[in-house]
């Protein structure tokens, strides 16, 4: 029995872990390309999830045949538009700010997005269904197909992203911009387009993470607080200087989170995971896969 519970925890960990990975990858992508640490990623994901929820409720009430599917695709479309708008309205005008200023802009965004969400959608908490319902039982092992769907979805999104970054011309432009924005621009890379695209991509990834976590947390203005913090921890653990790092960091945090939650304490789960992160950072100050940026004096 003990082993089965352990396996179940691992699967659960990989499920939430892949969501942390998605969200973390979004944060790192934006950070690398535009030097902005998007602390509003979680709130933006929450907002997208609320929109999805609204579409879902409306479609069900209207009696459409596949309400979840409609909601899912509207989430994709909405988050793409939303990401672009945020970049266009708030981020692009402040590219001339200092690094600290850019970071603070995203703190302002937290307030704006959170405030707007409670103004538009209210502060209640709502149920949202799983992407795939039901459970499968294999000799005492209870598995939700939803878990596999989540892991699968995360893998697909990350697969598409990594393929693009690695093998397409646009990917080269992204990497060049991440490496050195000014040089990339001089080489003819449209860095403005690249930045807008990364915001769109990252917002979609955040929205997917929100949509997939919603069945567990319910849809509410505070729903992303935990995922958001964990995804940042994952990014730090993996290192902000690598694209693979945050993915592995996310999975590690997800599994650790579940194990700590089950075997030690649910209340202190976040605190303990955070403590472990600090311990790791003492020995690996730039994360597991990060490298120390070379000082230029």
């Amino acid at each position, binding site marked *: 029995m003990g082993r089965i519970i352990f396996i179940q925890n691992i699967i659960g960990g990989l499920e939430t872990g892949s969501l942390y990975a998605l969200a973390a990858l979004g944060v790192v992508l934006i950070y690398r390309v535009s030097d902005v640490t998007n602390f509003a990623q979680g709130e933006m994901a929450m907002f997208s999830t609320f929109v999805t929820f609204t579409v879902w409720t409306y479609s069900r009430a209207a009696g459409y045949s596949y309400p979840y599917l409609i909601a899912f695709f509207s989430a994709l479309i909405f988050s793409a538009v939303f990401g672009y708008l945020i970049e266009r309205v708030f981020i692009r005008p402040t590219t001339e700010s200092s690094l*600290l200023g850019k970071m*603070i802009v995203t703190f*302002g965004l*937290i307030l704006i997005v959170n405030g707007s969400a409670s*103004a538009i959608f209210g*502060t209640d908490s709502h149920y949202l269904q799983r992407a795939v319902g039901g459970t499968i039982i294999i000799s005492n092992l209870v598995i939700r197909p939803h878990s596999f769907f989540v892991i699968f979805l995360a893998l697909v999104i990350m697969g598409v992203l990594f393929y693009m970054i690695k093998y397409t011309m646009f990917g080269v432009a992204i990497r060049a911009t991440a490496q050195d924005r000014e040089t990339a621009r001089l080489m003819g890379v449209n860095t403005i387009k690249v930045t807008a695209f990364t915001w769109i991509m990252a917002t979609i990834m955040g929205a997917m993470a929100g949509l997939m976590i919603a069945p567990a947390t319910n849809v509410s203005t505070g729903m992303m607080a935990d995922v958001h913090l964990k995804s940042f*921890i994952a990014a730090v653990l993996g290192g902000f200087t690598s694209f693979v790092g945050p993915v592995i960091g996310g999975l590690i945090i997800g599994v650790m989170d579940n194990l700590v939650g089950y075997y030690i304490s649910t209340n202190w789960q976040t*605190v303990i995971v*955070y403590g472990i992160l600090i311990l790791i950072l003492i020995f690996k100050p730039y994360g597991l896969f990060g490298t120390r940026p070379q000082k230029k004096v």
Partner: protein
Amino acid sequence: MMFQDKLINSHPYIKYIIVTAVFFLVLLIDLQFIIFTSRTINLLIRVVYFGIMALGFNMLLGYAGQISLGHAAYMGLGAYLTAYFSNHMGWNFMIILLLSGLIPMALGIILGLVALRMERLYLAIATLGLGVTGQMIFQEWRAFTRGFSGIRLERPEILGFAFNNSRHFLMLITVILLLVIILTYNFSRSRTGRALSAMRDSEYASQSLGISLFKYKLLAFAASSFYVGIAGSLYAYAERYVHPSTWGVELSLDMLAMVVIGGLASIGGSLVGAGFLVLVPRLTAATPVLADITNMNYILTGLAMILVIKYMPYGIYTTIDLKLIQPYLMGRSGENFRYQDLKKESDS
């Protein structure tokens, strides 16, 4: 002009003393004739203790260029310590106030020893976790905080005089604020304060001039947690109730918003920022259309932060100070340009 120059040079904080004196006079008149409603008095009380809080956070973000998203935890600790000491120990107000600053400061130093080895981005995330942890502890450590039931306490007493009247209490904390302002002013215009700002502007140059980054980052952390702890203590006395939900990341964001909106590395800016964040919810609640929108003040504060960064990188107060007050009051003599802005060229 000559006279003004001379006055400013020999009494650099005359500006603050005059403003406080006028404010105090108004309070005295009010005490006699009751002009303000008790609601206004409570609002002013909040501006004052949030002002002290913002001064503390500005020490960290504005003067030293370090970030923290966990300072709400230090403030909460200050508030709980005050509640605990005044309910269980019955100590003297000044001792409680001091301890409520010193203990968070000690904790800040211990945590800083670990956290300050990190760079800004990592520090932000680490302190964010710290803030979440702090709030968690306030919720769970019932023996000390009584969890979600919260703790009640009484207004302070000095030499047998109880400050039960909110007007008296406001005068008391205004005096404390003035004291804090003078100390901050002295601090910022001296060797240690300059070392902090030097570190903010160029880590390389300050190191090569003998400024130990670690020592001064730790000092900035210690000083700001002391201030914020004191502000927490005054919060507890003012509201007479301490509850864990107050000390979340939202409060840390409020601190940040105050100093950014008011003005980084500026005393007046800290106070204007505090005023802004206290008054905006009031004004929106009193405005017909806006009042119906939930959390409108969040949206306005967020917008203000971003607009300030874009259009007034020195903050509201400092922009006004540079454009209007200083040219008139100080002529050529003031130390005009010591404020931090948020433009690109100021990156180290």
